[in-house]
Protein backbone atom coordinates (compact mmCIF):
# COMPACT_ATOMS: atom_id res chain seq x y z
CA UNK A 1 0.00 0.00 0.00
CA UNK A 2 2.98 2.31 -0.53
CA UNK A 3 0.97 3.84 -3.38
CA UNK A 4 -1.23 5.46 -0.76
CA UNK A 5 1.42 8.06 -0.11
CA UNK A 6 1.75 9.06 -3.73
CA UNK A 7 -0.44 12.06 -4.16
CA UNK A 8 0.81 13.20 -7.48
CA UNK A 9 2.72 11.38 -10.20
CA UNK A 10 4.09 12.16 -13.63
CA UNK A 11 5.22 9.01 -15.43
CA UNK A 12 7.24 9.38 -18.64
CA UNK A 13 5.45 12.58 -19.53
CA UNK A 14 6.21 14.53 -22.71
CA UNK A 15 4.20 17.38 -24.11
CA UNK A 16 4.24 18.96 -27.56
CA UNK A 17 2.57 22.27 -28.36
CA UNK A 18 1.29 22.52 -31.91
CA UNK A 19 0.44 25.80 -33.64
CA UNK A 20 0.68 27.45 -37.07
CA UNK A 21 4.44 27.79 -36.82
CA UNK A 22 4.96 24.12 -36.11
CA UNK A 23 5.34 21.76 -33.18
CA UNK A 24 7.52 22.48 -30.18
CA UNK A 25 8.56 20.10 -27.45
CA UNK A 26 7.79 21.71 -24.09
CA UNK A 27 8.77 18.92 -21.70
CA UNK A 28 10.33 15.51 -22.31
CA UNK A 29 10.29 12.26 -20.34
CA UNK A 30 9.42 13.69 -16.94
CA UNK A 31 9.14 11.43 -13.93
CA UNK A 32 8.05 13.20 -10.77
CA UNK A 33 6.41 11.80 -7.66
CA UNK A 34 5.11 13.91 -4.80
CA UNK A 35 3.97 12.28 -1.58
CA UNK A 36 1.05 13.27 0.60
CA UNK A 37 1.80 16.39 2.64
CA UNK A 38 5.00 17.14 0.79
CA UNK A 39 5.94 20.58 -0.49
CA UNK A 40 7.91 20.39 -3.73
CA UNK A 41 9.26 23.29 -5.77
CA UNK A 42 10.14 23.41 -9.43
CA UNK A 43 12.84 25.89 -10.42
CA UNK A 44 14.43 26.46 -13.77
CA UNK A 45 15.10 28.95 -16.53
CA UNK A 46 12.16 30.28 -18.53
CA UNK A 47 11.00 27.83 -21.16
CA UNK A 48 11.63 24.82 -18.96
CA UNK A 49 7.94 23.89 -19.00
CA UNK A 50 7.06 24.70 -15.40
CA UNK A 51 3.65 26.08 -16.25
CA UNK A 52 3.07 23.21 -18.68
CA UNK A 53 3.62 20.76 -15.83
CA UNK A 54 1.14 22.60 -13.58
CA UNK A 55 -1.42 22.84 -16.39
CA UNK A 56 -1.21 19.08 -16.91
CA UNK A 57 -1.65 18.43 -13.20
CA UNK A 58 -4.62 20.81 -13.12
CA UNK A 59 -6.21 18.98 -16.04
CA UNK A 60 -6.18 22.00 -18.34
CA UNK A 61 -4.09 20.14 -20.93
CA UNK A 62 -3.44 16.43 -21.31
CA UNK A 63 0.09 15.17 -21.94
CA UNK A 64 0.98 14.15 -25.48
CA UNK A 65 2.79 11.11 -24.04
CA UNK A 66 2.90 9.49 -20.63
CA UNK A 67 0.61 9.51 -17.61
CA UNK A 68 -0.42 12.08 -15.04
CA UNK A 69 -1.90 10.62 -11.86
CA UNK A 70 -3.52 12.29 -8.85
CA UNK A 71 -3.91 9.98 -5.88
CA UNK A 72 -3.48 7.07 -8.28
CA UNK A 73 -6.19 8.16 -10.75
CA UNK A 74 -5.46 9.48 -14.23
CA UNK A 75 -6.27 13.17 -14.67
CA UNK A 76 -9.07 13.68 -17.18
CA UNK A 77 -9.90 17.34 -16.61
CA UNK A 78 -10.04 20.02 -13.93
CA UNK A 79 -11.17 18.60 -10.61
CA UNK A 80 -11.72 19.91 -7.11
CA UNK A 81 -8.93 17.63 -5.87
CA UNK A 82 -6.57 20.28 -7.16
CA UNK A 83 -6.40 23.96 -6.28
CA UNK A 84 -4.43 26.33 -8.46
CA UNK A 85 -3.02 29.69 -7.44
CA UNK A 86 -2.01 32.02 -10.23
CA UNK A 87 0.75 34.60 -10.45
CA UNK A 88 -1.84 37.39 -10.29
CA UNK A 89 -4.96 37.29 -8.17
CA UNK A 90 -7.45 37.75 -11.05
CA UNK A 91 -10.24 38.62 -8.63
CA UNK A 92 -13.41 39.59 -10.46
CA UNK A 93 -13.94 43.33 -9.91
CA UNK A 94 -17.73 42.95 -10.08
CA UNK A 95 -17.89 40.42 -7.23
CA UNK A 96 -17.46 41.07 -3.55
CA UNK A 97 -14.53 39.47 -1.75
CA UNK A 98 -16.80 36.77 -0.33
CA UNK A 99 -18.30 36.00 -3.74
CA UNK A 100 -14.84 35.94 -5.27
CA UNK A 101 -13.61 33.47 -2.69
CA UNK A 102 -16.72 31.35 -3.16
CA UNK A 103 -16.62 31.16 -6.96
CA UNK A 104 -15.27 27.60 -6.94
CA UNK A 105 -18.12 26.55 -4.67
CA UNK A 106 -20.61 28.25 -6.97
CA UNK A 107 -19.22 26.49 -10.05
CA UNK A 108 -19.26 23.09 -8.39
CA UNK A 109 -22.77 23.67 -7.04
CA UNK A 110 -21.78 23.74 -3.37
CA UNK A 111 -22.53 27.37 -2.54
CA UNK A 112 -24.72 26.97 0.52
CA UNK A 113 -25.17 29.27 3.51
CA UNK A 114 -22.87 27.05 5.59
CA UNK A 115 -20.25 27.02 2.84
CA UNK A 116 -20.33 30.82 2.76
CA UNK A 117 -19.95 30.83 6.53
CA UNK A 118 -16.81 28.70 6.11
CA UNK A 119 -15.54 31.09 3.44
CA UNK A 120 -15.89 33.95 5.93
CA UNK A 121 -14.00 31.96 8.53
CA UNK A 122 -11.30 31.15 5.99
CA UNK A 123 -10.95 34.83 5.09
CA UNK A 124 -10.61 35.65 8.79
CA UNK A 125 -7.94 32.94 9.25
CA UNK A 126 -5.99 34.39 6.35
CA UNK A 127 -5.97 37.82 7.99
CA UNK A 128 -8.96 39.41 6.26
CA UNK A 129 -11.67 39.41 8.91
CA UNK A 130 -14.89 41.19 8.02
CA UNK A 131 -13.88 42.12 4.50
CA UNK A 132 -16.31 39.75 2.77
CA UNK A 133 -18.63 42.44 1.47
CA UNK A 134 -15.89 44.75 0.15
CA UNK A 135 -14.79 44.89 -3.46
CA UNK A 136 -11.35 43.90 -4.81
CA UNK A 137 -10.33 47.44 -5.80
CA UNK A 138 -10.51 48.44 -2.13
CA UNK A 139 -7.76 45.94 -1.21
CA UNK A 140 -3.97 46.08 -1.53
CA UNK A 141 -2.01 43.62 -3.68
CA UNK A 142 -1.04 41.44 -0.72
CA UNK A 143 -4.62 41.31 0.58
CA UNK A 144 -5.91 40.43 -2.87
CA UNK A 145 -3.49 37.52 -3.11
CA UNK A 146 -4.77 36.34 0.29
CA UNK A 147 -8.29 36.35 -1.16
CA UNK A 148 -6.97 34.33 -4.09
CA UNK A 149 -5.56 31.83 -1.58
CA UNK A 150 -8.94 31.68 0.17
CA UNK A 151 -10.61 31.10 -3.21
CA UNK A 152 -8.21 28.21 -3.86
CA UNK A 153 -8.71 26.67 -0.41
CA UNK A 154 -12.49 27.13 -0.29
CA UNK A 155 -13.18 24.06 -2.43
CA UNK A 156 -10.97 22.01 -0.06
CA UNK A 157 -8.47 20.59 -2.54
CA UNK A 158 -5.94 17.94 -1.43
CA UNK A 159 -3.25 19.32 -3.71
CA UNK A 160 -2.21 22.92 -4.26
CA UNK A 161 -0.45 24.07 -7.38
CA UNK A 162 1.27 27.42 -6.84
CA UNK A 163 2.27 29.14 -10.07
CA UNK A 164 4.64 31.91 -8.90
CA UNK A 165 1.95 33.32 -6.62
CA UNK A 166 4.34 35.68 -4.79
CA UNK A 167 6.32 37.06 -7.71
CA UNK A 168 4.19 40.17 -8.23
CA UNK A 169 4.38 41.29 -4.59
CA UNK A 170 6.67 43.61 -2.64
CA UNK A 171 9.40 41.81 -0.72
CA UNK A 172 8.06 42.13 2.81
CA UNK A 173 4.53 41.18 1.78
CA UNK A 174 5.96 38.29 -0.17
CA UNK A 175 7.78 37.03 2.93
CA UNK A 176 4.65 37.39 5.06
CA UNK A 177 2.59 35.46 2.51
CA UNK A 178 5.19 32.72 2.17
CA UNK A 179 4.90 32.15 5.90
CA UNK A 180 1.12 32.27 5.82
CA UNK A 181 0.84 29.85 2.89
CA UNK A 182 3.28 27.34 4.32
CA UNK A 183 1.68 27.52 7.76
CA UNK A 184 -1.82 27.10 6.32
CA UNK A 185 -0.86 24.19 4.06
CA UNK A 186 0.96 22.41 6.90
CA UNK A 187 -1.98 22.87 9.24
CA UNK A 188 -4.44 21.50 6.69
CA UNK A 189 -2.05 18.72 5.62
CA UNK A 190 -2.10 19.71 1.95
CA UNK A 191 0.28 18.54 -0.71
CA UNK A 192 1.81 21.37 -2.73
CA UNK A 193 3.83 22.02 -5.83
CA UNK A 194 5.36 25.48 -6.23
CA UNK A 195 6.74 26.90 -9.43
CA UNK A 196 9.10 29.83 -8.92
CA UNK A 197 11.98 31.82 -10.33
CA UNK A 198 13.13 32.70 -6.86
CA UNK A 199 15.69 30.19 -5.59
CA UNK A 200 15.58 31.60 -2.05
CA UNK A 201 11.82 31.15 -1.99
CA UNK A 202 12.14 27.55 -3.20
CA UNK A 203 14.82 26.79 -0.62
CA UNK A 204 12.93 28.43 2.23
CA UNK A 205 9.52 26.89 1.59
CA UNK A 206 10.10 23.40 0.22
CA UNK A 207 10.78 19.90 1.41
CA UNK A 208 12.29 19.11 -1.96
CA UNK A 209 13.45 21.23 -4.92
CA UNK A 210 13.52 19.95 -8.48
CA UNK A 211 15.78 21.80 -10.94
CA UNK A 212 14.71 21.79 -14.58
CA UNK A 213 16.60 22.63 -17.76
CA UNK A 214 14.90 24.20 -20.75
CA UNK A 215 14.30 23.34 -24.43
CA UNK A 216 12.93 20.79 -23.88
CA UNK A 217 12.04 20.89 -20.19
CA UNK A 218 13.67 18.04 -18.29
CA UNK A 219 14.87 17.28 -14.77
CA UNK A 220 18.56 17.78 -14.15
CA UNK A 221 18.75 17.72 -10.37
CA UNK A 222 16.72 17.07 -7.27
CA UNK A 223 17.53 18.33 -3.79
CA UNK A 224 16.02 17.23 -0.54
CA UNK A 225 16.16 20.18 1.84
CA UNK A 226 17.96 19.62 5.15
CA UNK A 227 15.66 18.98 8.11
CA UNK A 228 16.52 22.23 9.88
CA UNK A 229 15.33 24.28 6.89
CA UNK A 230 12.19 22.19 6.46
CA UNK A 231 11.06 22.55 10.02
CA UNK A 232 11.65 26.32 10.12
CA UNK A 233 9.18 28.81 8.70
CA UNK A 234 10.29 30.38 5.39
CA UNK A 235 11.20 33.62 7.17
CA UNK A 236 13.32 31.83 9.80
CA UNK A 237 14.81 29.39 7.31
CA UNK A 238 16.40 32.30 5.47
CA UNK A 239 18.35 33.17 8.62
CA UNK A 240 19.71 29.66 9.27
CA UNK A 241 23.35 28.87 8.69
CA UNK A 242 22.60 26.03 6.28
CA UNK A 243 20.45 28.21 4.04
CA UNK A 244 23.24 29.91 2.10
CA UNK A 245 24.82 26.55 1.37
CA UNK A 246 21.59 25.19 -0.14
CA UNK A 247 21.06 28.39 -2.05
CA UNK A 248 24.55 28.24 -3.54
CA UNK A 249 24.02 24.64 -4.58
CA UNK A 250 20.76 25.47 -6.32
CA UNK A 251 22.37 28.47 -7.94
CA UNK A 252 25.16 26.28 -9.35
CA UNK A 253 22.60 23.76 -10.64
CA UNK A 254 20.63 26.47 -12.33
CA UNK A 255 23.76 27.90 -13.94
CA UNK A 256 24.52 24.42 -15.21
CA UNK A 257 20.93 24.15 -16.52
CA UNK A 258 21.31 27.34 -18.48
CA UNK A 259 24.69 26.11 -19.72
CA UNK A 260 23.07 22.87 -20.85
CA UNK A 261 20.55 24.85 -22.83
CA UNK A 262 23.34 26.79 -24.55
CA UNK A 263 24.98 23.48 -25.46
CA UNK A 264 21.71 22.26 -26.93
CA UNK A 265 21.29 25.18 -29.26
CA UNK A 266 24.94 24.86 -30.28
CA UNK A 267 24.34 21.38 -31.63
Amino acid at each position, binding site marked *: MADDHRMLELIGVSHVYVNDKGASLAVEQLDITVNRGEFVSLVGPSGCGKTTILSMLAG*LISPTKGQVLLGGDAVSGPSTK*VGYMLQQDFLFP*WRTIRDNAAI*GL*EITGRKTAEALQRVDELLAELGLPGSGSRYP*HELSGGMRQRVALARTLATEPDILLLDEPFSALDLHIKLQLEDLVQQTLRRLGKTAMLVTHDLAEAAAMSDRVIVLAANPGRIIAEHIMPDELRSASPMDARRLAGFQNVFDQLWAELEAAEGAEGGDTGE
Partner: protein
Amino acid sequence: MNKEQEELKAEVSGIQEDRVSWMEDLHLRFKKRAQRLTAAVGATQIAILVLFVALWEAAGRLRWIDPLLFSYPSKLFNQIWTTIADGSLWPHIGMTVSETAVGFALGTLLGTALAAALWWFPFLSRVFDPYLVVLNSLPKVALGPLFIVLLGPGFVSIVAVTLSVTVIITTINIYNQFREIEAGFIKVVRLFGASRAQLFRLVILPASFPVIISALKVNVGLAWVGVIVGEFLVAKLGLGYLIIYGFQVFNFTLVLSSLVVIAAVATVMYQLVAILERKLTNGWRER
Protein backbone atom coordinates in the same frame (compact mmCIF):
# COMPACT_ATOMS: atom_id res chain seq x y z
CA MET B 1 6.68 64.48 36.98
CA ASN B 2 2.99 63.90 36.57
CA LYS B 3 2.53 67.53 35.81
CA GLU B 4 5.31 67.43 33.30
CA GLN B 5 3.71 64.53 31.52
CA GLU B 6 0.42 66.29 31.40
CA GLU B 7 2.04 69.38 30.04
CA LEU B 8 3.81 67.27 27.46
CA LYS B 9 0.51 65.63 26.55
CA ALA B 10 -1.18 68.99 26.21
CA GLU B 11 1.62 70.15 23.99
CA VAL B 12 1.34 67.06 21.82
CA SER B 13 -2.41 67.33 21.57
CA GLY B 14 -1.96 70.99 20.76
CA ILE B 15 0.33 70.02 17.90
CA GLN B 16 -2.17 67.44 16.76
CA GLU B 17 -5.01 69.92 16.78
CA ASP B 18 -2.87 72.35 14.83
CA ARG B 19 -2.15 69.67 12.32
CA VAL B 20 -5.79 68.63 12.04
CA SER B 21 -6.97 72.19 11.47
CA TRP B 22 -4.13 72.78 8.98
CA MET B 23 -5.10 69.69 6.97
CA GLU B 24 -8.80 70.47 7.14
CA ASP B 25 -8.01 73.93 5.87
CA LEU B 26 -6.09 72.47 2.92
CA HIS B 27 -8.95 70.13 2.13
CA LEU B 28 -11.46 72.96 2.36
CA ARG B 29 -9.43 75.09 -0.01
CA PHE B 30 -9.15 72.18 -2.42
CA LYS B 31 -12.91 71.65 -2.33
CA LYS B 32 -13.55 75.34 -2.88
CA ARG B 33 -11.28 75.38 -5.91
CA ALA B 34 -13.05 72.34 -7.35
CA GLN B 35 -16.45 73.95 -6.72
CA ARG B 36 -15.36 77.18 -8.36
CA LEU B 37 -14.21 75.27 -11.45
CA THR B 38 -17.52 73.37 -11.68
CA ALA B 39 -19.45 76.61 -11.29
CA ALA B 40 -17.35 78.30 -13.98
CA VAL B 41 -17.95 75.42 -16.40
CA GLY B 42 -21.71 75.52 -15.75
CA ALA B 43 -21.86 79.30 -16.12
CA THR B 44 -19.96 79.18 -19.43
CA GLN B 45 -22.28 76.45 -20.71
CA ILE B 46 -25.36 78.51 -19.87
CA ALA B 47 -23.75 81.66 -21.28
CA ILE B 48 -23.09 79.93 -24.63
CA LEU B 49 -26.72 78.77 -24.80
CA VAL B 50 -28.13 82.17 -23.85
CA LEU B 51 -25.81 83.98 -26.26
CA PHE B 52 -26.74 81.63 -29.07
CA VAL B 53 -30.48 81.99 -28.46
CA ALA B 54 -30.21 85.79 -28.09
CA LEU B 55 -28.13 86.14 -31.26
CA TRP B 56 -30.54 83.94 -33.17
CA GLU B 57 -33.52 85.89 -31.89
CA ALA B 58 -31.92 89.21 -32.79
CA ALA B 59 -30.79 87.98 -36.20
CA GLY B 60 -34.28 86.75 -36.97
CA ARG B 61 -36.12 89.84 -35.79
CA LEU B 62 -33.67 92.28 -37.35
CA ARG B 63 -33.77 90.34 -40.64
CA TRP B 64 -30.05 89.53 -40.69
CA ILE B 65 -31.24 86.06 -41.63
CA ASP B 66 -34.42 85.09 -43.40
CA PRO B 67 -36.94 84.29 -40.63
CA LEU B 68 -38.98 82.24 -43.08
CA LEU B 69 -36.09 79.80 -43.41
CA PHE B 70 -34.38 80.03 -40.04
CA SER B 71 -37.28 81.19 -37.85
CA TYR B 72 -36.25 82.40 -34.37
CA PRO B 73 -36.40 81.08 -30.80
CA SER B 74 -39.48 82.89 -29.51
CA LYS B 75 -41.43 81.62 -32.51
CA LEU B 76 -40.15 78.10 -31.88
CA PHE B 77 -41.11 78.10 -28.22
CA ASN B 78 -44.45 79.64 -29.05
CA GLN B 79 -45.01 76.79 -31.52
CA ILE B 80 -43.94 74.16 -28.96
CA TRP B 81 -46.01 75.76 -26.21
CA THR B 82 -49.23 75.95 -28.22
CA THR B 83 -48.91 72.36 -29.46
CA ILE B 84 -48.18 71.16 -25.92
CA ALA B 85 -51.12 73.18 -24.57
CA ASP B 86 -53.62 71.94 -27.15
CA GLY B 87 -52.23 68.40 -26.72
CA SER B 88 -51.41 67.91 -30.41
CA LEU B 89 -47.67 67.42 -29.80
CA TRP B 90 -47.94 64.54 -27.30
CA PRO B 91 -48.98 61.75 -29.71
CA HIS B 92 -46.01 62.63 -31.92
CA ILE B 93 -43.60 62.54 -29.00
CA GLY B 94 -45.13 59.33 -27.66
CA MET B 95 -44.87 57.58 -31.02
CA THR B 96 -41.28 58.59 -31.69
CA VAL B 97 -40.11 57.86 -28.15
CA SER B 98 -41.66 54.39 -28.13
CA GLU B 99 -40.15 53.61 -31.54
CA THR B 100 -36.73 54.80 -30.38
CA ALA B 101 -36.89 53.01 -27.03
CA VAL B 102 -37.98 49.73 -28.61
CA GLY B 103 -35.38 50.21 -31.35
CA PHE B 104 -32.39 50.80 -29.12
CA ALA B 105 -33.33 48.29 -26.43
CA LEU B 106 -34.06 45.57 -29.00
CA GLY B 107 -30.97 46.53 -31.01
CA THR B 108 -28.73 46.16 -27.97
CA LEU B 109 -30.37 42.90 -26.87
CA LEU B 110 -30.24 41.39 -30.35
CA GLY B 111 -26.66 42.54 -30.85
CA THR B 112 -25.63 40.99 -27.53
CA ALA B 113 -27.43 37.75 -28.38
CA LEU B 114 -25.72 37.56 -31.77
CA ALA B 115 -22.36 38.29 -30.15
CA ALA B 116 -23.03 35.49 -27.65
CA ALA B 117 -23.81 33.10 -30.51
CA LEU B 118 -20.58 34.03 -32.28
CA TRP B 119 -18.65 33.50 -29.04
CA TRP B 120 -20.32 30.18 -28.36
CA PHE B 121 -19.63 28.83 -31.86
CA PRO B 122 -16.15 30.04 -32.93
CA PHE B 123 -16.74 28.34 -36.28
CA LEU B 124 -19.70 30.67 -36.92
CA SER B 125 -17.63 33.71 -36.03
CA ARG B 126 -14.97 32.78 -38.57
CA VAL B 127 -17.61 32.14 -41.23
CA PHE B 128 -19.51 35.38 -40.64
CA ASP B 129 -16.56 37.69 -40.05
CA PRO B 130 -16.30 39.05 -43.64
CA TYR B 131 -20.10 39.36 -43.93
CA LEU B 132 -20.27 41.41 -40.75
CA VAL B 133 -17.52 43.74 -41.92
CA VAL B 134 -19.24 44.37 -45.25
CA LEU B 135 -22.70 44.74 -43.68
CA ASN B 136 -21.28 47.21 -41.18
CA SER B 137 -19.89 49.48 -43.87
CA LEU B 138 -23.13 49.36 -45.85
CA PRO B 139 -25.53 52.33 -45.44
CA LYS B 140 -28.34 50.20 -44.07
CA VAL B 141 -30.94 52.99 -43.89
CA ALA B 142 -31.01 52.62 -47.66
CA LEU B 143 -32.86 49.37 -47.01
CA GLY B 144 -35.74 51.40 -45.50
CA PRO B 145 -38.06 51.15 -48.53
CA LEU B 146 -37.54 47.38 -48.56
CA PHE B 147 -38.68 47.09 -44.93
CA ILE B 148 -41.77 49.15 -45.73
CA VAL B 149 -42.67 46.87 -48.62
CA LEU B 150 -42.03 43.78 -46.50
CA LEU B 151 -43.52 44.83 -43.16
CA GLY B 152 -46.05 47.45 -44.21
CA PRO B 153 -45.91 51.15 -43.41
CA GLY B 154 -45.96 51.82 -39.68
CA PHE B 155 -44.39 51.04 -36.31
CA VAL B 156 -42.87 47.65 -37.21
CA SER B 157 -40.98 48.79 -40.28
CA ILE B 158 -39.70 51.90 -38.51
CA VAL B 159 -38.33 49.71 -35.70
CA ALA B 160 -36.85 47.45 -38.40
CA VAL B 161 -35.03 50.43 -39.94
CA THR B 162 -33.72 51.31 -36.46
CA LEU B 163 -32.54 47.74 -35.88
CA SER B 164 -30.78 47.71 -39.23
CA VAL B 165 -28.77 50.69 -38.04
CA THR B 166 -27.96 49.40 -34.54
CA VAL B 167 -27.64 45.59 -34.56
CA ILE B 168 -24.53 44.99 -36.67
CA ILE B 169 -22.29 47.53 -34.98
CA THR B 170 -23.49 46.36 -31.55
CA THR B 171 -22.72 42.75 -32.43
CA ILE B 172 -19.23 43.62 -33.63
CA ASN B 173 -18.37 45.77 -30.61
CA ILE B 174 -19.65 43.34 -28.01
CA TYR B 175 -18.18 40.28 -29.70
CA ASN B 176 -14.78 41.98 -29.81
CA GLN B 177 -15.11 42.67 -26.09
CA PHE B 178 -16.01 39.01 -25.43
CA ARG B 179 -12.79 37.97 -27.14
CA GLU B 180 -10.61 40.48 -25.34
CA ILE B 181 -11.45 39.34 -21.83
CA GLU B 182 -8.38 38.76 -19.68
CA ALA B 183 -7.22 35.14 -20.15
CA GLY B 184 -6.48 34.92 -16.40
CA PHE B 185 -10.17 35.46 -15.52
CA ILE B 186 -11.12 32.61 -17.84
CA LYS B 187 -8.39 30.39 -16.39
CA VAL B 188 -9.69 30.97 -12.86
CA VAL B 189 -13.11 29.47 -13.62
CA ARG B 190 -11.79 26.79 -15.98
CA LEU B 191 -9.58 25.52 -13.14
CA PHE B 192 -12.74 24.87 -11.14
CA GLY B 193 -14.13 22.88 -14.06
CA ALA B 194 -16.64 25.49 -15.22
CA SER B 195 -18.82 24.61 -18.22
CA ARG B 196 -19.03 26.91 -21.21
CA ALA B 197 -22.38 28.22 -19.98
CA GLN B 198 -20.90 28.96 -16.53
CA LEU B 199 -17.91 30.64 -18.13
CA PHE B 200 -20.27 32.89 -20.08
CA ARG B 201 -22.54 33.69 -17.15
CA LEU B 202 -19.85 34.17 -14.50
CA VAL B 203 -17.09 35.84 -16.50
CA ILE B 204 -17.72 36.81 -20.12
CA LEU B 205 -21.04 38.60 -19.63
CA PRO B 206 -20.32 40.52 -16.39
CA ALA B 207 -16.85 41.51 -17.62
CA SER B 208 -18.52 42.96 -20.73
CA PHE B 209 -21.17 44.99 -18.91
CA PRO B 210 -19.35 48.31 -19.33
CA VAL B 211 -19.08 47.76 -23.08
CA ILE B 212 -22.71 46.65 -23.34
CA ILE B 213 -23.75 49.82 -21.53
CA SER B 214 -21.64 51.98 -23.80
CA ALA B 215 -23.23 50.17 -26.77
CA LEU B 216 -26.57 51.13 -25.26
CA LYS B 217 -25.44 54.78 -25.16
CA VAL B 218 -24.26 54.73 -28.77
CA ASN B 219 -27.49 53.01 -29.78
CA VAL B 220 -29.62 55.78 -28.26
CA GLY B 221 -28.09 58.12 -30.85
CA LEU B 222 -28.21 55.62 -33.71
CA ALA B 223 -31.82 54.69 -32.94
CA TRP B 224 -32.86 58.33 -33.33
CA VAL B 225 -31.30 58.37 -36.82
CA GLY B 226 -33.13 55.15 -37.71
CA VAL B 227 -36.46 56.36 -36.35
CA ILE B 228 -36.36 59.78 -38.01
CA VAL B 229 -35.35 58.29 -41.37
CA GLY B 230 -38.08 55.67 -40.97
CA GLU B 231 -40.64 58.36 -40.21
CA PHE B 232 -39.47 60.45 -43.16
CA LEU B 233 -40.27 57.46 -45.35
CA VAL B 234 -43.67 56.35 -44.12
CA ALA B 235 -45.12 57.74 -40.90
CA LYS B 236 -48.29 59.71 -40.30
CA LEU B 237 -47.28 60.37 -36.69
CA GLY B 238 -44.05 61.22 -34.93
CA LEU B 239 -41.45 63.97 -34.69
CA GLY B 240 -39.77 62.81 -37.91
CA TYR B 241 -43.11 63.08 -39.62
CA LEU B 242 -43.54 66.62 -38.25
CA ILE B 243 -40.15 67.57 -39.69
CA ILE B 244 -40.88 66.22 -43.15
CA TYR B 245 -44.39 67.72 -43.07
CA GLY B 246 -42.90 71.07 -42.03
CA PHE B 247 -40.56 70.96 -45.00
CA GLN B 248 -43.42 70.12 -47.36
CA VAL B 249 -45.60 73.02 -46.22
CA PHE B 250 -42.60 75.33 -45.89
CA ASN B 251 -43.12 75.75 -42.15
CA PHE B 252 -39.55 75.83 -40.87
CA THR B 253 -40.67 76.88 -37.43
CA LEU B 254 -42.31 73.44 -37.18
CA VAL B 255 -39.14 71.73 -38.47
CA LEU B 256 -36.82 73.47 -36.03
CA SER B 257 -39.16 73.21 -33.05
CA SER B 258 -39.42 69.45 -33.66
CA LEU B 259 -35.62 69.29 -33.60
CA VAL B 260 -35.59 71.12 -30.26
CA VAL B 261 -38.09 68.61 -28.85
CA ILE B 262 -35.93 65.73 -30.15
CA ALA B 263 -32.87 67.24 -28.47
CA ALA B 264 -34.75 67.51 -25.16
CA VAL B 265 -36.16 63.96 -25.30
CA ALA B 266 -32.81 62.49 -26.40
CA THR B 267 -31.12 64.15 -23.43
CA VAL B 268 -33.64 62.60 -21.04
CA MET B 269 -33.11 59.15 -22.59
CA TYR B 270 -29.35 59.48 -22.36
CA GLN B 271 -29.63 60.40 -18.67
CA LEU B 272 -31.82 57.34 -18.06
CA VAL B 273 -29.16 55.12 -19.62
CA ALA B 274 -26.52 56.80 -17.44
CA ILE B 275 -28.61 56.00 -14.34
CA LEU B 276 -28.92 52.39 -15.51
CA GLU B 277 -25.14 52.28 -15.93
CA ARG B 278 -24.55 53.44 -12.36
CA LYS B 279 -27.03 50.85 -11.07
CA LEU B 280 -25.45 47.95 -12.97
CA THR B 281 -21.82 48.68 -12.22
CA ASN B 282 -22.37 49.89 -8.67
CA GLY B 283 -19.33 49.32 -6.46
CA TRP B 284 -16.79 47.89 -8.89
CA ARG B 285 -16.30 50.73 -11.35
CA GLU B 286 -12.66 51.19 -10.41
CA ARG B 287 -10.47 48.45 -11.78
